[in-house]
């Protein structure tokens, strides 16, 4: 019988924090911007410049630590990681090695296999590097330091995961925590969340870990899943062939869907880490931790519990809505204005999800305001517009966040409630469709549907179909 293998996976997740300014200077962290416009002497490594820690970065890191059950390091320091590369203006990165801000935490994940705890080894703070642009045409390289000094935290897990599903569940869980804390937008594609996968395999039942590799350049859940599966197979093949797995760093090629070795353990650089003498040690008091804890926002699991208590909506809806902090925020604000949790949930669950899917958008990209959604709900409730007009209006709102009240006035979409006008149209429809009238009078109940449709069409949709139905029945009875 073939040997059974177990995959052992640990993750290093880099998260860009959404502070307004950089970690060691006052420059903007805004994405985009002309090259080297969000820079100053500090983040371009000018001689004589000195770093000063952005307190917000520290508090965000502590908030993440508290949300993942970590111990907060009371005496913490920054270290310099020395390596030469042009995207790194000082040729050292300010990071944390010896005394990281958070240690020994955990998060709970859930997969088809059930619940499981994944340990957090540590969380440390560091600065991001700039961006190199290789101009093949001019045969030169340019460097943009806008990203240099943007704050990052690196969340290092224990090697507790055993499958791609667990890895995805862990990443989703982290993303939820970070988004709910409001410390990062966690967009893999834009690089504000990046995961490196450490993977080894071992024969099922053995204690000893196999030799691991580190996989870099994974920028979607899909590529993470493919890379894990591919690397597991590659390592098993090596072992089956009686060969060794080499400890190395590999790079994932998303187009070819395969990885290649970047550097082996032997040519690993010596980073010569040492405490940065330009930054003083940080002493964290109990009071400070308590203050951060008291400011922690409601996390997803707490929100789900509360929705169950407060709103009469299905668990499935709660799961979807709280799956995005942004969507949950819109939901709650809409409910607060309209007092209609079920209707608010329906708009999000049906029309919003459909439009997001059609437009290939994420829930984070939702642009319409809760105020406008609440207005739309009210307009429908009060039968100012009918449901099909409401859907039309919603599509425009989804696209441009228009005020539905103003929009329907401008476009004249209000339902016509004038009985005489309706009656006149109905008469015309009856005149024009003798076959259907006859069918109806001969007992074909369904034929009335066609007549309602024709009337609605003639009214350009601006009628209450219920009212049309009633008038039709009344007038046909008199035939």
């Amino acid at each position, binding site marked *: 019988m073939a040997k059974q293998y177990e995959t052992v996976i640990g993750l290093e997740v880099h998260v860009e924090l959404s502070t307004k300014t950089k970690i060691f200077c006052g420059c903007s962290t805004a994405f985009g911007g002309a090259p080297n416009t969000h820079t100053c*002497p500090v983040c*371009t*490594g*000018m*001689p*004589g*410049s*000195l*770093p*000063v*820690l952005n307190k917000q970065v520290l508090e965000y890191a502590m908030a993440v630590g508290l949300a993942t059950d970590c111990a907060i390091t009371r005496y913490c320091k920054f270290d*310099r990681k*020395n390596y*030469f590369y*042009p995207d790194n*203006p*000082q*040729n*050292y990165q300010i990071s944390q090695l010896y005394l990281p801000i958070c240690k020994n935490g955990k998060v709970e994940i859930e997969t088809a296999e059930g619940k499981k705890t994944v340990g957090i080894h540590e969380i440390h703070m560091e600065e991001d590097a700039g961006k190199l642009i290789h101009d093949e045409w001019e045969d030169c390289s340019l*460097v943009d330091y806008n990203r240099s000094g943007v704050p990052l935290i690196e969340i290092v897990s224990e090697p507790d995961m055993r499958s791609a599903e667990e890895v995805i569940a862990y990443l989703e869980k982290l993303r939820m925590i970070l988004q709910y804390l409001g410390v990062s937008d966690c967009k893999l594609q834009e690089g504000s969340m990046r995961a490196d996968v450490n993977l080894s395999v071992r024969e099922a039942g053995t204690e000893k870990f196999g030799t691991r590799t580190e996989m870099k350049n994974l920028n979607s859940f899909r590529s993470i899943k493919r890379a894990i599966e591919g690397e597991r197979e590659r390592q098993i093949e090596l072992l089956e062939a009686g060969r060794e797995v080499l400890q190395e760093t590999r790079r994932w090629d998303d187009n070819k869907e395969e990885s290649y070795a970047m550097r082996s353990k032997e040519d690993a650089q*010596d980073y*010569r*880490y*040492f405490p940065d*003498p*330009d*930054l*003083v040690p940080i002493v964290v008091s109990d009071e400070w931790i308590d203050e951060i804890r008291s400011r922690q926002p409601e996390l997803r699991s707490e929100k789900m519990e509360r929705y169950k208590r407060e709103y009469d909506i299905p668990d499935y809806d709660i799961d979807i809505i709280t799956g995005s902090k942004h969507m949950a925020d819109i939901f709650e604000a809409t409910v607060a204005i309209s007092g209609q949790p079920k209707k608010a949930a329906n708009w999000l669950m049906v029309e919003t999800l459909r439009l997001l899917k059609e437009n290939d958008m994420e829930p984070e990209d939702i642009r319409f305001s809760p105020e406008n959604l609440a207005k739309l709900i009210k307009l429908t409730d009060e039968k100012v517009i009918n449901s099909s007009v409401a859907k039309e209006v919603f599509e425009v709102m989804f696209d441009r966040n228009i005020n539905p009240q103003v929009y329907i006035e401008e476009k004249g979409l209000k339902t016509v409630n004038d009985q005489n006008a309706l009656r006149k149209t109905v008469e015309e429809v009856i005149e024009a469709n003798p076959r259907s009238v006859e069918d109806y009078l001969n007992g074909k109940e369904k034929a009335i549907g066609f007549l309602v449709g024709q009337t609605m069409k003639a009214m350009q949709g601006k009628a209450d179909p219920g009212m049309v139905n009633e008038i039709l029945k009344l007038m046909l009875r008199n035939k």
Partner: protein
Amino acid sequence: MDILKWTATELAAKIKNKEVTVMEAAQAVLDSIEKKERHYNCYITVDNEGIMKRAEDIQRRIDSGELTGRLAGVPVAIKDNMCTQGMLTTCASRMLGNFIPVFSSEAVLNLEKEGALIIGKTNMDEFAMGSTTETSAYGETKNPWDESRVPGGSSGGSAAAVAAQECFFALGSDTGGSIRQPASYCGVVGMKPTYGTVSRYGLIAYGSSLDQIGPISKDVTDCAAILEVLASHDKKDSTSIFRNDTDFTSALIEDVQGMRIGIPKDYLGEGLDAEVKEAVLRAAQVLKEKGAVVEEFDLSLVEYAIPAYYTIAAAEASSNLERFDGIKYGYRTRDYEGLHNMYKKSRSEGFGAEVKRRIMLGSFVLSSGYYDAYYLKALKVKALIKKAFDEAFSRYDLILGPVAPTTAPRLGESLADPIKMYLGDIYTISVNLAGLPAMSVPCGKDSQGLPIGLQLIGNCFQEKKIIQAAYTYEKARGVFGTPTAEKEKV
């Protein structure tokens, strides 16, 4: 009227009293530079074009009552490792031969706020690494007392410029004695304040945890006045300390009655030149006669200070100097193939031998497998040295000793044997390791007429005790003289 003979505070007072103008003072300095620079080479850059215009501007602001500072209008020289906006800042290295900073260091800004007139940038050992100012890429500075000798270092250009009356005072930086030792060799006053007292923002770092900017001046009064202007709490420097006791001139009091002064026996032992020892003990005797209680004691650990210092300073330097890679500013080699070749050639050609030696030493002590044995151990020694000083300061107000084992060596003597040169820092470097303030005051000359410095060391934040004792000593000592005066005698 010999303007150049005045001290900085005297000149400022006379400018204020309209006895002399800022332009006249500036012209006197420019004339002095013109006459002496070819002998001494104190400066790397003199702002010949800009200085008169700035002098006029300062004069106007003094006349309008806008500038009332105690250094208003006084010409000052800045060590070339402090950034000056728009003015070449080289660190005496080929690496920064074309570097013009986009901002000024906080210490320079503090001087400018007070109305001081920046003349130019002084020569130094490359990146402040050296004890002689001979490692400069712009030629060595010569000691104005004897041109065949070094001025000391690394702030040799600053100390020599003050001694040669090519400025009224200067800024130096002190990582292991780089202010005090050249001050001692050049017969001027130099002070390294408590770590954190003067902002390091804009000081191009050598050993960040040890570097501190301080004044080099003609006398103790100037020293106190300048330090008062330099000291500030700077939010741009995380290691800057808020102090509300920086009114240093209030300590210019002629009184050491009952002051307890300890002389470490370790500072008087083997290796100390007999004439230096005699002069230092004579100075101690003067303070004793003025009422101080002076005694010898065992400081301990002195022999570990040099290896600990060279480990820590080199480690920090190896990292601090990584940014000089030829990419963003500074020197880039002409021909190269690929990135790594460019790094290698730019740095090999841009840095001098002493800088490379320390980068290699520092990289070694931080490398994996050696970190614990060297760097961590050095940090432990540093902590023990601090403890030894704490212990000493529980018994003494001040510690007194020599600044350097000898007077200024001859040019070319020191670099041949770097270990010997490093050992010359023995009395100054513990002060940096412990973050303490210390001053060098001229206390005599040897048989060849070379100045000898007396070192007064205080506990952290006790600059005032140092100033008070130094001021009392200086009054008792009388006029020390200048090389110009000596030469005029002949």
